């Protein structure tokens, strides 16, 4: 079952690529843990699609408020892992 770090930055990177692509001037493989999603070229619509993909892949239901408030990959990953921990 999932541990607290079940959803990693690499998982997020691959989900972002699949659900929303990557803006031209953005290096998604760089140190983006605390970079604002906005600076990475992702707006709320893209993050909704990313969240939806995560929910389907992991069979969880994310906290809408936590995901909506997540401004950085760190916050998003934390929100996912909180839910994964809750169901494990």
């Amino acid at each position, binding site marked *: 079952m999932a541990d607290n770090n079940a959803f990693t930055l690499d998982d997020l990177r691959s989900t972002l690529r699949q659900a929303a692509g990557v803006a031209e001037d953005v290096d998604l493989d760089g140190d983006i843990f605390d970079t604002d999603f906005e600076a990475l070229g992702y*707006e*709320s*619509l893209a993050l*909704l*699609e990313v969240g*939806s993909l995560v929910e389907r892949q992991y069979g969880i239901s994310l906290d*809408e408020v936590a995901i909506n408030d997540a401004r950085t990959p760190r916050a998003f990953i934390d929100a996912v892992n909180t839910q994964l921990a809750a169901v494990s």
Partner: protein
Amino acid sequence: MNGRRVVLTGIDVIAPGGVGRENFWDLLSSGRTATRGITFFDPLPFRSRVAAEADFDPYDHGLTPHQIRRMDRAAQFAVVAARGAVEGSGLAMADLDPHRIAVTVGSAVGATMGLDQEYRVVSDGGRLDIVDHTYAVPHLYHHMVPSSFATEVAWAVGAEGPSTVVSTGCTSGIDSVGYAVELIREGSADVVVAGSSDAPISPITMACFDAIKATTPRNDEPEHASRPFDATRNGFVLGEGAAFFVLEDLEAARARGAHIYAEIAGYATRSNAYHMTGLRSDGLEMAEAIRVALDEARLNADEIDYVNAHGSGTKQNDRHETAAVKRSLGEHAYRTPMSSIKSMVGHSLGAIGSIEIAASALAMEHDVVPPTANLHHRDPECDLDYVPLTAREQRTDTVLTVGSGFGGFQSAMVLAAPERSVR
């Protein structure tokens, strides 16, 4: 411009809780809501399970079995409302040159309901990628391309002039009427049967709005689910319906002694060129549309008696729109009642713009401003007079109605009593 002024002489509405012009006005002026738990299909799998459904039986409105079979529900709405508008206008269509009668139909999502149902069949429940066309209904193409709505309306009213469907998402209902006004002003038509229709309450629509969390999850209070400008609002309630109008030249309407509801005095549409679904909070582009529409109507901002809001009840829309109205009307915005009928009839996408034009014209007719239902705790960031809960009697000679939609479209229309003095 050849100076032709364009007026509304016929109105018919099919709305949730109010089929027919009078029933519709009765609903609005009483402040009742027509939102309810979805009955058209099992809503259990969905995040949002409320909608504003119209109680509409096509057989009650004289459609033949053939018409009913070949038309999507939205096309049925359009034909019934278009016919009703023509009847109500008292215009003897048979006496006119058919090439001088035009048709414009707004629709955001066309025959979504029919497409959803038919896809399920030809794909055998989504199993077949190579769908089986032998299971398709013979009119499936008319669902795919909603120009069929304009054809049906043209046939129903005997129009052979320039006709089209205008499909600009949730501003379609304003833009369709705006298009029609331009046809009369430029001399391409003498009469336009114009309006809009959508019937989107279908699983695919609920699913896509669930995915972007645009519709409200307030499933435990369906009749109080649509809460424009309220601090507790959390999304719109999907609706359906249609409104159609007879538009004609003011002088011609006067000459035949027609009842004139209102002049369409100004119209403009602009785009935010920002995002397909997102809005910037400054309301700049909607304000520009309002400014141009007022200019075309030759009205000052402080001459507007009532603002009929888009007021969808999403967090971002209501703030965006409040900002746009303040930006365009200035201090007068604070003195002007501004209400959202979506609190009562939901958001019927491309149809609602025309339904709101109807509401605006009827507000002028009755000198009554319809309320915003369910508005108990105003959002501090929405600080205008939204006419909470109860309709208000007031002299209403000029109305600004606005719309905002996916794709970034922002539209504004000004209705005015034609006898007002033109500066």
